[in-house]
């Protein structure tokens, strides 16, 4: 035991310095030089002002914008300093009540829709910060957004067409639309 203590302590200190300080600092240094924008959070700026990150969702629930998915973060939705999901089980009445409320809201704002509601619009994401909605969820909202903005629905629809990100290499993940980017493109249309 006696001659085990010294190697245990020295090895632990050495490993701590190398993997706990040197390694993250080295990765940071290289990342800042090679991929500075990614390392800093892929932020989007309007002029000098930071208005979001292309990877982090924002809450949109007004008539003139495409809506994001519901978010379960506390205390406000899309709280990017406190990520997390609802963790409600499939049989939990709280989940069912919440979905019922959201579905009612969506049907009231999209009275002309005959299609089923895209599921992602009534369920919360795992991180509460999901930047995407499904293409179906985007198309579902086209007429509502066009009406609210007094724009031709065909223009808005073609904007959605162009916003769809396909699965990586045609294989990995699902087709999706980045809501923040889509809404920024929508704002840019009017200028």
């Amino acid at each position, binding site marked *: 035991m006696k001659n085990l203590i010294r190697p245990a302590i020295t090895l632990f200190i050495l490993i701590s310095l190398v993997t706990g300080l040197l390694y993250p600092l080295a*990765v940071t240094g290289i990342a800042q030089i090679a991929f500075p924008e990614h390392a800093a959070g892929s932020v989007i700026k309007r002029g000098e002002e930071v208005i979001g990150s292309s990877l982090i969702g924002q809450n949109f629930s007004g008539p003139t914008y495409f809506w994001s998915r519901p978010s379960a973060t506390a205390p406000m939705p899309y709280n990017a300093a406190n990520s997390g999901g609802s*963790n409600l089980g*499939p*049989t939990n009445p709280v989940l*069912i009540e919440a979905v019922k409320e959201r579905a009612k809201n969506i049907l009231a704002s999209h009275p002309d829709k005959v299609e089923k509601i895209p599921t992602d619009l009534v369920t919360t994401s795992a991180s509460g910060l999901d930047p995407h909605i499904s293409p*179906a969820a985007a198309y579902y909202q086209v007429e509502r957004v066009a009406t609210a903005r007094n724009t031709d629905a065909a223009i808005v629809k073609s904007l959605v067409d162009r916003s769809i990100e396909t699965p990586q290499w045609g294989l*990995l993940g699902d087709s999706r639309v980045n809501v923040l980017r889509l809404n920024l493109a929508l704002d840019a249309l009017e200028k």
Partner: protein
Amino acid sequence: MNTSPWIQIGLFLIVLFVVAWPLGRYLANVFDGQLTRRFIWLDKFEHRFCRFIGTNPEEDMPWQRYATAIVLFNVIGVAVVYGLQRFQSELPLNPQAFGAVSSDSAFNTAISFVTNTNWQGYGGESTMSYLTQMLALTVQNFASGATGIAVVIALIRGFTRRNAAGIGNAWLDLSHSIFYVLLPLSFIFSLILVNQGVIQNFNAYQEVKLIEPLEYAAPKQDLNGQPLQDDLGNVIMEAIKTDKQSIAMGPVASQEAIKLIGTNGGGFFNANSAHPFENPTPLTNFLEMISIFLIPTALCFAFGQMVGDQRQGWTILAAMTVLFITMAAVALWSESHSNPLITQLGADGSMGNLEGKEIRFGIISSALFATVTTAASCGAVNAMHDSFLPLGGLIPMGLMMLGEVVFGGVGAGLYGMLIFAILAVFLSGLMIGRTPEYLGKKIGVFEMKMVSIAILIVPLLVLGGAAIAVVTEVGKASMANPGAHGFSEVLYAFTSAGNNNGSAFAGLSANTPFYNILLAIAMWFGRFGVIIPVLAIAGRLAAKPKLAVTSGTLPTHGPLFVVLLISTIIIIGALNYVPALALGPIIEHLQLFSH
């Protein structure tokens, strides 16, 4: 669904095996001394390194000494991780000015990261300073991974050595694991992650001006920050308007890489690998899944090479792969269904169970990730398992209950599997009336006692812990979901802790003194209650002579042994856990789909 799930599983396994094969050869060369024999300068450097840390590179430790070294190293880890959390407010790199972590939570987290469990009772971005994340948690991601690798290498030496007194030098095995394996792999992987969008900085949290201002209700606070209550004791809510979003930052990529490569699973952020800054694209998701299985797979190849018979490694790997594909198929099948309670409210029934999942991953990549992370004892999550359909949630739980041997944790998966292999030859030995032997080593009474301890201690901790929790009021108070699902949450927590996985049905409010302490006990004994018997077996086997292969020797390679091994694992797992599972996910499934 865009692509056939089978293509994704197939692609995943092919890429995995192609990458793991050369890594396996490299691992074998690192640990059987080939590497230092080939590069003399490295050998010289190692001698100087050993003198510096105070060990003799030639020392061959008996198993008791090896085990003492490993436990000592890990106890120091617990003390340091605990201390750093308690004093983080006094230390640098704390831009959000987080206070000290509570003592029970800090204790739980220290045990959790040292035992490679990485169960998280806290939310990373709202609790831990950057220094704590790096110097406490990242270090343990390396140290606990290295511990697992060292132990399995010691066990393999037990099979390869003859009449030997020792099973290796623990300090060298730990150092080799970190500096030759985990660190270089993590370094490369972390840069790939940044390239895809994972952040790596020391900035304060990024303030963002929202496009659309937001109104929400929050508890009204008095001047001291305490929630105000009305006369009836209800919390007073107030409407707050904001046009700001605060985005958590940090040195994420460096921790993310080792979190997966070391099958640790403790996320920088509360949402773990579901957070866009930890796992921004489907490609990172794919690579993260590969990283989880990479070393466990490579170790199977290294095992084959070190015992001088590649077929032995392939046999173990085949058993793991068959179990994995079966479980993945069930998880995918379950999650591609929609929740009938939600579709009857007007939601599209063809999109699958999207509650608690991210759109960029979709159903397939989420269900596959859940299978991978619980087959290996990683515990990172890219979707909230609590919100899976009942059978989809049964798969992660079931994989952990099999003892984390389907690929399993780095090192831990293979030593767990070898324990089952010894049990399988013992059982077949009984059936055919032969003395059991594995890889030329006779399996004696002492070895079988140790095997029994290693296999039975975890179910004892899991079922015992869950039983205590559901009969006490404090235990029940933490359940977030009613009914059978609440029981599943508790069962999942102890299964995850005892098997050192670390994923959760995260609705359970586990950051209470009761759960912090009880789960810490399960994690510690679930780890070292297995490691010590494994090292004892290694020591005893190393001391034995090697038996010649005769016509009466049971071959431990080929399809027959794969079936024997799988049957042993399933019988043990099922005998232990089916009654508990029947009370949780199985009842819930029947309730959900009865109407």
